[in-house]
Structures are given as C-alpha cells and as structure tokens.
C-alpha cells in the first residue's frame, strides 16, 4: 500500500522538484557563469535564499492542498495507518526540498570548483543549507499540518522563520557575552555560521539538537495528522 502512496505523492509533487531545480540551478548557473559576484557570494546567496524558500514552497501544497481539495478523508480512509501516509508525505517533501539545493551544489562544483574556492569549501555551506532546509521543513510540516489553506501553511512557515530570527536577536541583545551558540543551535541558524571560528564546535550541537527536535516534531505531527479526520475542514 505504501508504493501507491509514494506514486501518488510523487505525481502530485514532482513539478515542484522541477520548478525548484530550474529556479535554484538557473540562478546558480547564470550567476556563476556571468561572474556577477564572487563565487563565495554566489554560493552563500544560493544557500541563504534557497533555504527558507524551498520548505515554504513545498509545505504549502503538502497537507493543506488535501484539505482544500477534500481528498484528505479519502486518503485517511485507505487501509493504511495515517502515520505512514504522513511519513510518505514527509519523505517526498524532504526529497523535493533537498534535491534542488543538491543540484545547485553540483552546478557550482562543475562551474567553479578550484576557481576561487576549493570543492570542500563549496560543499560545506551547501550541506549547512540542506540541514537548515530539512529542519525548517520538518518544523513547518509538523506545526502547519492542520492548516486548512496554502496561505496559512505558508504563513506558519514564515512565522517559524521570524520566530527563530527573533530568538537569535533577543539572545544577542539580552546577553553581552556570547551564549555558546545555544540560540543558534535551537534555531537551525547554527547550520549557517560557516567560516566562523566556532562553527565546528557549534555544528555537532546544532545537529544533535535539531535531530532531537525533529524526532519529537515528527511524532507530534504524525499524531496530529492521524486526528485530522476528526477536525473540522
């Protein structure tokens, strides 16, 4: 029963993969080929603007579309456990989120590796971006699973992003001494502090905290998804 679910999700969502790839890979290719900026600048802008964009864009149509099109009842009436449906959606969504940034990384390696940056220096920010994307996607999917419309789902994602930014800013303002990166690790901004002295000490902390949070959020999201039948559409 899982295979048809994967097939359904893939057929519904695959255009987003194409769209994400065209946009992000196109941006990277045009920017690097025409040397609009330094290679490092291009890599960082791709990672930084691609990171919030992709999860918002994927989450918008993952759960709320089912509710909007009234297909959720049918989906939940299938002889398969709701958490499995949730998991399939989550996995397909995660793949769609990550592949465009991976494609962008390959384009960068193909055009610019060894030109101004070593291959490893190109790969690190992209890996950080992938970490951020996955974290934001899981947060958005789990918190926004019950949203009845795409706009609300997108707003939930935006609110999460703004909330994270607020946490980091408040932490920065409240403490005159560095707070050992806890605010950066709790919010996945820790993935983006590449090149700083403390990046390699911050990274394991960020990964561990985000993994723990992701597990909790997935379990919570799956439970909320299972009870969707009972909620008002």
């Amino acid at each position, binding site marked *: 029963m899982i295979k048809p679910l994967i097939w359904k999700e893939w057929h519904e969502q695959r255009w987003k993969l194409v769209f994400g790839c065209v946009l992000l890979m196109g*941006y990277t290719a*045009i920017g690097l080929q025409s040397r*609009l900026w330094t*290679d*490092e600048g291009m890599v960082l802008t791709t990672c930084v603007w691609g990171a919030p964009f992709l999860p918002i*864009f994927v989450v918008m149509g993952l759960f709320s579309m089912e509710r909007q099109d009234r297909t959720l009842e049918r989906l939940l009436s299938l002889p398969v456990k709701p958490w499995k449906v949730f998991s399939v959606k989550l996995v397909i969504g995660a793949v769609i989120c990550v592949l465009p940034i991976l494609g962008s990384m390959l384009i960068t390696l193909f055009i610019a590796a060894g030109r*101004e940056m070593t291959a490893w220096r190109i790969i690190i920010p992209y890996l950080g971006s992938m970490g951020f994307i996955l974290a934001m996607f899981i947060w958005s999917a789990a918190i926004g699973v019950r949203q009845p419309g*795409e706009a609300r789902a997108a707003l939930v994602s935006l609110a999460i992003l703004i909330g994270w930014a607020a946490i980091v800013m408040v932490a920065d303002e409240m403490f005159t001494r560095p707070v050992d990166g806890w605010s950066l690790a709790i919010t996945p901004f820790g993935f983006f502090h590449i090149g700083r002295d403390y990046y390699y000490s911050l990274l394991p902390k960020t990964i561990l905290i985000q993994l723990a949070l992701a597990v909790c959020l997935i379990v919570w999201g799956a439970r909320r998804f299972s009870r969707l039948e009972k909620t008002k559409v």
Partner: protein
Amino acid sequence: MKASIALMWKEWSEVRWSLFAWSLIFIGFPLFTAFFNYLHTQRFYSPIGAVIASGFGGICAIFIASGLTCPDMRVKLFNFAISKPININKWITIKYFAGLVVVIFVYLSALIIEYYFSRNQDHYSHKALYALMNTHTFTIILIYSLSFFVGCVVRKTAYAAIVSVSVALLVYFLPLLFPPLGAFSIFNIMEQWPIQTVHLSRLESGGPWFGEKLRVLKLSGDFGIRYNIEWLRYVVVAVISIALSIIFSALAIKKDWRLKIGQKSVLWSFGIVGLLLLSGLAFQIGSNLKCINQISLKPIVKEKQALVKIFSRGNKGLLMFTDGQGRLSHESGISVSRYDFAGNNTKISPTISLEPDGGTQWRNWPVEWRSVLWSEKNPDLIYYLKREVDPDTGKYAFYFCTASLDEEVGKTSVIHKLNIGSLRSQKTLSSCQYMTLKNDKAYLSLFEKLIIVDLAIPNKPSLSKVVDGTIGYVGSSYSFDPELGRNRSLIRLNLVPDDSLSIEERLDITAKLAGITPFIMAASNKKVVLAAKEYVRFYEFKSMEDDVAILEMIGQRLPTPLERYLRWNPEYMFISDDLAYVFDTRGGNSVTVFDIGKTGTVKRVGHYASAGGRMQAIALLQEKGILVGMEDKLQIVAPPYE
C-alpha cells in the same frame, strides 16, 4: 451614510489585526533595538527604521492588499456581499483606503522614527529619508494598488500574494534592468535626491544638467522647492497607474472577472520573473569575456604586497608591486618583475625591489608607483620621478632617475639622476603627475608644466624642454551647423608642443598626459575616446589651430540606468584595433570593451568583472587577449569577437 459607516466598521475590524502586526515590525522593532542600544550604550538610537521601511514596505503592502481582498471574494461570501443593498464602488473604495491607511501609517511611522533618531546626524542621511518619503511612498502605494487589483482578480490569498510579489519585482527592477524603461527606475530617481527645499538666493547658477532636469517652485519669501523633472514624470505615471488599478479593481468585482490559476502557474510565473530579472542583470553587468588562464603571483610576491601596474609590449612586460597596495605611504616599497608570455610560456621572474638613492632619509619623499616608467626598448632600465633635497641649494627638487634592473642582486641601482628643478609647487607629487614614453623621449606633465626628457642615450637622460601651461582639454562647443543640417559637438585639446611628432602621436601623448578629470582619454589613429561616469564619447580629428586640435563627436554611449546606479567609474583606458578597453573602479573593478569601429556608434561588446579579488591593472597581450592583474594573480581573458 449609515451604509458607509457600517462598511468602514467592517473593514476596520478586518484590518486592525494587520495594523497591530505590522506596527510591531515597523514601529516596535526599531524601538525595541533602540531600547537595547540604550541599555548597552546609554543612547536611545536605532538605525533600522529606514531599512525596515524600504525592505518590508512592499511586502507589507502586498500582504495587506491580498488579505483584504481575497477572503471577501470567495464565491459564497462574495455573492452574499453583493446581494446586500450596497454600492459596489463605495465598498471597494472603503476597502481600498482602509488598507492603504494602514500601509502608509506603518511605512511613514518607521521613517519618522528613524528621522527622530537621526535628528542630530548629518544632512546626507536626512536626504535619503526625504527621498524615501517623497518618492518611495508612491512606489509603495503603486504596489499596494496593483496587489489590490491582483487580489480582486485572482481571489486566492496565497496565489494573489505570490503574483503580487512578481509584479512588485517588476515595478522595482524592470526599469533598472531594461534601459528603455530607465526613466521610471525608482533607484535612479531616489539617488538624485529628487525634492529639496532651497534658499532661492543661494541657488547655484545654471549648467546644462540643472536646466535639463531640475525645476524650482517658488514658495514664500526666499524659500522654494527644487524638484527633478524625472521625479515628476515618475509620480504622474505612478498616480495614473494607481487610478487605473482602482478602476480595474472595481470593474473586476462588478463584472466578476476571475483569473483561474493554480499553484503551478503562479509559482512558474514567479520563477520566470525572477530568472528574467537575473538574466537582465547578468546581461548588463555580468562577464561575457572568458578567463582562459590564471597565473598565481603568490610565489613571487611577499605578504601585503599587491600588483598595481602592468607595462606591456607584445607578450612581454613588467609587473609592478607595492607594499601598501597602491596607497602612497612612506613605508610603501616598490618592486618590479618581468613576465614573458610568448608562446606557451607563463614565465614570471623574481621581483626586483626599487631602492631609490637616499629614499630612506626622512626629508626625502618616497617614489610613488604612478611616477615609474619602463619601455620594451630598454628593458633593463627603469625611470622614475623623485622629489628630494638638492644638496647644492638645500631645497626640494625633482629628479628624473634612471636605475638598472638587476635580477641576480634583486635590487635596482641608480645609475643617473637628472635634476629638473624645484617647479615651485607645494602640491603633493601624486596628485598631478602623468608620465609617458615615446620615441626616445619621456613626457612628464607636472604642476601645469610639460617637461620633455631626451632618452637618446638611455642611461644618461638629458632635459630637452620645459613648457608652461596645461595640455589636454581646453573647451567644447555645441552648435547647429546649417550646412550639415545637424548639431555638431566639438572639443578642443591643447596638444603636446612637439613638432617632431605626427598629429596621431601628439594626440596619443596628450591623451596619456591629460589625467583623469573630468574624464579619461585615449587616442589612436586621429580618433579620441572620452570616458566619464555619464558617457563614453568617440571623437574624430578635424583641424588644428596652432597647438590646439579640434575634434568632432561622431558617436556616444550613455550608461544604462543600472550602470548609473552602480556608479560606473572609468579610470584607465587604451585603444587597440578600434576597440576601447576601459578599466573602471566600481565595486571589485572590471574591464569593459567598446567597439568604436563604426562611425556614429559606440557599442559595448565585452565585459569582465573581477569576481574573487580586486582588479588592479589591465594590459593587452599580443594575440592572446587581455591581461588582467589582480592583487595576487594574473588572468588572461579572451578578447571580444573570439
């Protein structure tokens, strides 16, 4: 009246949450940061009001417009609404203004807060705030109005917001990126400080630019408002567009126009707009010339040393480095290195440091890198100008020094010093000197004097001539020629007074000595190209009057709005085979190639931006391409048309 009040109440109850939420961002955030700034520095100040207003103003307008229109346009709700005995026009107008008031309130509040915080600061930051208030406000209203119309037609909040973002991107960036629409580029208009209050009695007089673009509106007494005509045109077009948006919004509701679009088409349209704008940007300022080889200079340069100049002839030449990255300082040491890129060679010799005789004495000036000369005719010699104390008189004098380049020793040794006098000037050495070599002669333009040094005996130069007066640009005229039936633009150049040279050679030397203000100049085959921030002009030699050459403009190219906005700043230029190579110092520096082969046109045919390092100097390699010198590497760039 009762219906209007009821409608107002309805819209207010819908919009008040938006007002609260956006106020938190536009007003709360600057106050919040100012509060924490006060805790840390005892100063209640935040510089982010203008950043938030300019960065989030458009987004706020889009969100409010989409949020106000779309929820009321759902089929059932819409049918219910229009079944009521209310005037649709009134409903739309009240809805429109309810949202607009919120947008303008939060936008202007952020700017006013910023103005309050910066009240004791410089006039420059106030000018930027005024420009945001008197120009960008219209853009925000325009975006709000267009988003309102999109909301009325699309009728789905998320889709309407995304389509509106695409529209806003076009409003902001299309005029900047596509030159025919340049007159409506908000960025170009704002950077000119379009409206200013002026004292009429203190207004600067005339000037073609003043007459062309600026108008003055007299207020009471000595006060007036000076406005830019481009601003007025922008405002008129914005107001017309706003009015049309409102009219079409009302029509869309009355006639029930609906644009049935799905997520796919909405997002693709957004993506296409983004890529279209990026392509426009890449087309205008991206590099179309390809780097074909890169040679690291790290093995030969020391730490903090940077390339500053390239002397080139054929495929060989000399690279010059300084310790101070080109800045004049007493610590800045100069060193040179020969290169040979003939055939498949990429040979760069070890550096030879310039050791000027007596250069370390505190009373003597250091050699400045711009005053060094080298020619392929005497590759083992280097000439430079130095200011030091004359032992006979005890006063400062200028010396034209000759030094030999000895790679084995790694240092130069001075073999001759020619005293060319004190020149009676207190001006610094670097501010007004231009030097060049031609046919066994060195030409130095120094403190309104032309000094010609004879190099017939290369290691024993002698003073040939000292002429008073400046050379280069002496004036221009623009008039209608009834015989030709068109306008003629002429410039007059005072040429180097050396009758042993041909006119082509005199033009070439004059261009090299003329300096960089108000434009840079290069000449070749009786053609002269002038490059400035505002134009690239191409002149042809017409006649001579004594030592003054008269040249007529036969083509020009004006910068695109994007080039103007990014402040294209040409600093060095040379011409080869009807191609003018212009080195500009904007951003990370770049080289632009213009084709001047066709009379009447100056066509931009190539561009190379120095991503990944600061470009320092350019030169031409025979048959290989353009040699681009970065601080610590050389790049060979394929020329245009290859």
